[in-house]
């Protein structure tokens, strides 16, 4: 079963320079045309539900990035909402990544452990994560521990399962080589198991990152939260302040894009020096 491996976002093969350049221009043009059409359409219609992008960007800027330079231009709301959200997400994702990789190696190393844990793991992954949040609300009450626990508990399964599958897929000949070279367990982990499972691990991490973002927002959307981007969203929703809703979506989109790109960059750096298969 490799259910968790399938994921979106296949890295694009590098195109030839001239070709790539033309595509970059095309992409920029398309983006500008799309934004222009939206701007023009929104102004023409004057609908409160679809404000023009210029106003959305402006609202985002005044909400979060109008602060002084010594705070990296973050405003009070930027410091009070964006940073706590990101902090909780980083904590939850970090716990999930470290715990998932460690547990995945343990489970994947032994056929017995894998057979023992597999059904439970498959079930844990199959639970739609938002369903667990009410449980954590009951156990931890509202607040950062509940949110971090929700994120970590939702994001850990894809990493864990993919790491276990990656470790299981280690070439048996290479395990023989490690035995003949008499590598100790730590060396075997460092020089064989982890590098060979790395593509699987990153496939899991990418899934976990999107789940972390979803859970970050979701746990803040619940009534009872005091801050965060999700809180900004519900707060604006209750006041029917659509401009702020759109601005928060813009911020989340940009954050999601940046985080995905960062993870991809780390992946390229760590797996770049192996044979492209």
């Amino acid at each position: 079963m490799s259910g968790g491996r399938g994921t979106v976002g296949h890295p694009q093969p590098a195109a030839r320079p001239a070709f790539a350049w033309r595509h970059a221009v095309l992409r920029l043009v398309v983006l500008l045309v799309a934004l222009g059409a939206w701007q023009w359409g929104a102004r023409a219609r004057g609908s409160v539900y679809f404000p023009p992008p210029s106003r959305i960007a402006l609202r985002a800027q005044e909400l979060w990035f109008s602060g002084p330079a010594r705070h990296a231009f973050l405003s009070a709301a930027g410091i009070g909402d964006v940073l706590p959200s990101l902090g909780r997400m980083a904590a939850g994702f970090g716990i999930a990544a470290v715990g998932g990789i460690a547990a995945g190696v343990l489970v994947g190393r032994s056929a017995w452990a894998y057979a023992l844990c597999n059904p439970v793991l498959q079930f844990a992954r199959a639970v739609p994560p938002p369903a667990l949040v009410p449980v954590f609300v009951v156990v931890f009450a509202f607040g950062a521990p509940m949110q971090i626990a929700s994120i970590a508990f939702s994001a850990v399964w894809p990493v864990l399962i993919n790491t276990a599958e990656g470790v299981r897929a280690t070439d048996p000949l290479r395990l023989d080589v490690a035995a003949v070279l008499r590598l100790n367990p730590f060396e075997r982990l460092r020089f064989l198991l982890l590098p060979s499972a790395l593509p699987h691990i990153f496939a899991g991490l990418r899934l976990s990152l999107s789940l972390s973002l979803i859970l970050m927002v979701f746990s803040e959307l619940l009534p009872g939260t005091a801050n965060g981007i999700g809180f900004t969203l519900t707060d604006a929703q209750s006041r029917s302040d659509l401009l702020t809703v759109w601005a928060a979506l813009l911020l989340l989109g940009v954050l999601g894009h940046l985080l995905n790109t960062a993870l991809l960059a780390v992946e390229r750096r760590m797996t770049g020096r192996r044979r492209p298969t």
Partner: protein
Amino acid sequence: MTLRLDALGQRYGDHPVLHDITLTVPDGQLLCVVGPSGCGKSTLLRTVAGLQPAREGTITLDDAPVTGVPDHLAVVFQDYGRSLFPWLTVRDNVALPLRRRGLARAARRAEADRILERVGLDGTARRHPWQLSGGMQQRVAIARALVCRPSLLLMDEPFGSLDAQTREDLEDLLLEVHRTDATTIVFVTHDIDESVYVGDRVVVLSPGPASRVVLDLPVELPGKRDQIGTRRLPEFVALRSEVGRVVRGA
């Protein structure tokens, strides 16, 4: 290092693979094991390497029984593409076994570079295995095997997937290494010519199941071996025909 197999037997479940193999490989000998494919040559090697326990009989190295992977042992596998670690550079691949010896990082690197030069790979240390040709990759694997100065070297059809020219070069490299280091070597191959050319002694296994030794032949060839002259010697031709006859008839 003297390797002794005594009534060695091996099986997978109910399926017998090796039966009653008794052999003594004296210190410094290069023994070639020949047999048709599927006769259990690789199983024999894996058992000697301690990668799977013997079901029957015993293996001893200098009178010490083999129970796990013994010290001072190195193995070269046929599939260099899989046996090398693609995420490590050539130098790091070769230096990997030296970690056991507790050498400092710089010393490990120097030692790896020295051995790389010896197998004719100077200048490749910082590249990755998959950037090299097949023959060069197998040289890396040989360097990794030699770097710890093993007293017993096992080779499982090491040149089986190389082209003829590369293969001859590597055969000569092996002979040179054997001449200088006097390591005990067990060399498994299905190539009859190769076994007679590199071996001090050739052992033929019967086809499976339950392979056993059907021929045990010392190889005595005059002079230093070379690819063109040696293969034309009447002694070489006679030995090759004898081995060939047994392999086919067995």
